[in-house]
């Protein structure tokens, strides 16, 4: 145990301890930056890799390296290039996406797909272990273990102490301590790091999913097709899905407001999928919280939160893998850059180098998707309008451009105006029908009361 702890101390620290007291430590940093990255998913692995490539000493702590995370497993196309993900990791290439409204109106969201473009589907365990291995190859130290607590420093150049329980077979199980200059909290929706530093809380949705192995013929239907189901029977504020995976489909749903009823919504999505998933066998059931918005404090002291721990999951689509990896990389680069420039990592520096750059690039996209969710997911009228509008080719093209390449490009003004007009028209028509439905319901209730 002591050997494990000692192995983690950087030997160089003892040599220059005399100069560590002044905050304006050497313009040339005498030793490499030490960062503990807590959590070995896409966010943590990308942060560790970015730090290691910049010459810092990164310790990547992961409590369950072999775990398979409950996740849709879809990533945008730009992630394959930006993160150099080998093509053979991709299980499926989804080129058709079908959206179904509460009245079962179906729209095929694939007419405007650019040639060669697709949505890659991967298994999380495959992706995560690839990213971790690459981080290790770049120089990060993989530490299998569970972080139990974080000792906060008293002064601006005092180290953080990361207490963990090691589960590595080589070092022997037992408690260990890491002494580091900064911490990256990449430990997901139930982040321990966030709790330790008091980053605040956020509302979460619950995503519930069953993996169902289908017979060959049924699986062929989902070969390159993913389905999204909308409706009050499937979710009051989100969507249900059938996503193809390597040899099975993932059928699931999610909700923010009605978590106790998630099982009912799951029956709802299975009923709606109907004969298409008939004869299947449930091989796994999984559930996980998904953050709905960022935490009140994403950077506290020299601790930065990334990925799900920070709350970077878009609303409306529930996408988080790309943003986790991207924020991890951005944070790692910001830390290393600040260290190289000033010899220290500070909260202000992290805010400028990481948070400011992140918000500038992605805040608009997150806000826009929040708006879409509020408008289109809340009642059946909105859902019907969404599906009607998705039949429009311009909408499909813009959606794919912004989803696959993560660029919110303003389209041509005439197209946008026409889109706005069509949106308003669809909303009005479906809203009117929604009100008619409510009126009929009221009448039926009155009739029943009169009869009773």
């Amino acid at each position, binding site marked *: 145990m002591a050997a494990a702890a000692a192995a983690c101390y950087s030997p160089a620290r003892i040599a220059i301890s005399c100069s560590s007291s002044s905050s304006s430590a050497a313009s040339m940093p005498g030793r490499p930056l030490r960062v503990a990255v807590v959590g070995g998913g896409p966010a943590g692995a990308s942060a560790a890799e970015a730090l290691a490539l910049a010459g810092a000493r990164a310790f990547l702590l992961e409590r369950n390296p072999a775990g398979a995370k409950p996740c849709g497993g879809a990533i945008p196309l730009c992630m394959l290039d930006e993160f150099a993900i080998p093509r053979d990791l991709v299980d499926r290439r989804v080129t058709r996406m079908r959206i179904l409204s509460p009245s079962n109106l*179906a729209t095929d969201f694939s007419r405007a797909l650019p040639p060669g473009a697709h949505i890659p589907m991967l298994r999380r365990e495959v992706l995560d272990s690839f990213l971790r291995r690459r981080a290790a190859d770049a120089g990060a130290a993989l530490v299998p273990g569970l972080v139990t607590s974080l000792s906060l420093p008293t002064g601006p150049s005092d180290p953080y102490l990361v207490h963990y329980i090691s589960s590595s077979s080589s070092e022997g199980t037992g408690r260990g301590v890491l002494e580091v200059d900064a911490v990256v909290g990449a430990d997901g929706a139930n982040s321990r790091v966030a709790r330790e530093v008091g980053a605040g809380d956020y509302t979460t949705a619950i995503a519930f999913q069953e993996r169902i192995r289908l017979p060959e013929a049924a699986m062929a239907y989902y070969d390159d097709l993913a389905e999204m189901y909308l409706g009050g029977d499937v979710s009051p504020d989100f969507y249900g899905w059938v996503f193809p995976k390597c040899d099975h489909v993932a059928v699931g749903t999610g909700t923010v407001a009605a978590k106790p009823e998630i099982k009912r919504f799951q029956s709802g999505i299975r009923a*709606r999928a109907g004969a298409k998933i008939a004869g299947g066998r449930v091989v796994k059931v999984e559930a996980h919280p998904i953050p709905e918005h*960022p935490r009140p404090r994403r950077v506290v002291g020299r601790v930065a939160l990334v990925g799900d721990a920070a709350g970077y999951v878009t609303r409306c689509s529930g996408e988080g893998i790309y943003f986790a990896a991207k924020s991890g990389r951005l944070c790692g680069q910001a830390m290393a850059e600040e260290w190289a420039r000033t010899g220290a990592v500070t909260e202000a520096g992290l805010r400028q180098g990481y*948070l400011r750059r992140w918000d500038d690039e992605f805040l608009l996209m997150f*806000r826009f998707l929040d708006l879409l969710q509020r408008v289109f997911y809340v009642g059946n009228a909105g859902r019907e309008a969404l599906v009607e509008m998705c039949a429009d080719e311009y909408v499909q093209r813009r959606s794919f451009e912004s989803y696959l390449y993560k660029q919110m490009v303003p389209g041509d003004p005439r197209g946008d105006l026409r889109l706005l007009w069509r949106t308003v*028209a669809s909303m*009005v028509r479906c809203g009117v029908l929604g009100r*008619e439905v409510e009126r009929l319901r009221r009448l039926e209730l009155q009739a*029943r009361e009169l009869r*009773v």
Partner: protein
Amino acid sequence: MAMATSTFSPRPASPSTLKRLRTGAKPHLHLSFARLCAGRLARAAAGEAPVEAPPKQPDVDLSPAAASNGAAVKAEAPVAVEAEAEAAPVPRFRDARWLNGTWDLKQFEKGGAVDWDAVIDAEARRRKWLEDYPEATDTDEAVVFDTSIIPWWAWMKRFHLPEAEKLNGRAAMVGFFMAYFVDSLTGMGLVDQTGNFFCKTLLFVAVAGVLLIRKNEDLESLKKIIDETTFYDKQWQATWQEDSPAERKK
């Protein structure tokens, strides 16, 4: 109208049965698909049977679903069928005018032209039915009806025009009173007011107010919308607000 709606209610029309059918079971689906999907029947036994036998609910959900979808389906199927037989099956949405996933407009003709009001009524009934009894999607019977088939003037005539008289009346009353009030305060007559920018702004506000705030409830819902739209933004900006207390943590 009451007669028309009652034909779409299931046989046991008492409120409690209807509620139970709606919240728990979708027995009609499973009966009609009984031949096709034994797996779903088993799940019906797991998930929907509790409608008839509440004590079974907690443990039935997960384990039988996992086991029964594979091997033990036959054992579950008879149980499921019994459960559904007790729960008065509800048929799928059926209407003589609904053909091939859309409304057959020829059947709505009245005096040579299509009676769009009847189409709107029929579609509203269909959506209400599906809200109460969601149906499994079927690739063979795909729905292709979308509301843009109904022309804009049909919507206008039915939903806007009846309200239009009331709204125009309100706008006229507000306008007259405001014109008088501004005249008594500033001495500008009506003609002078129409040339003034501030007065034109007031006019715009009055028209928008009459259009948006039609009932007392609209005020509350507008406030809620404003709160909700800014809530998300506030969460993102929160990290920038916390400058002074956070410094101490360094």
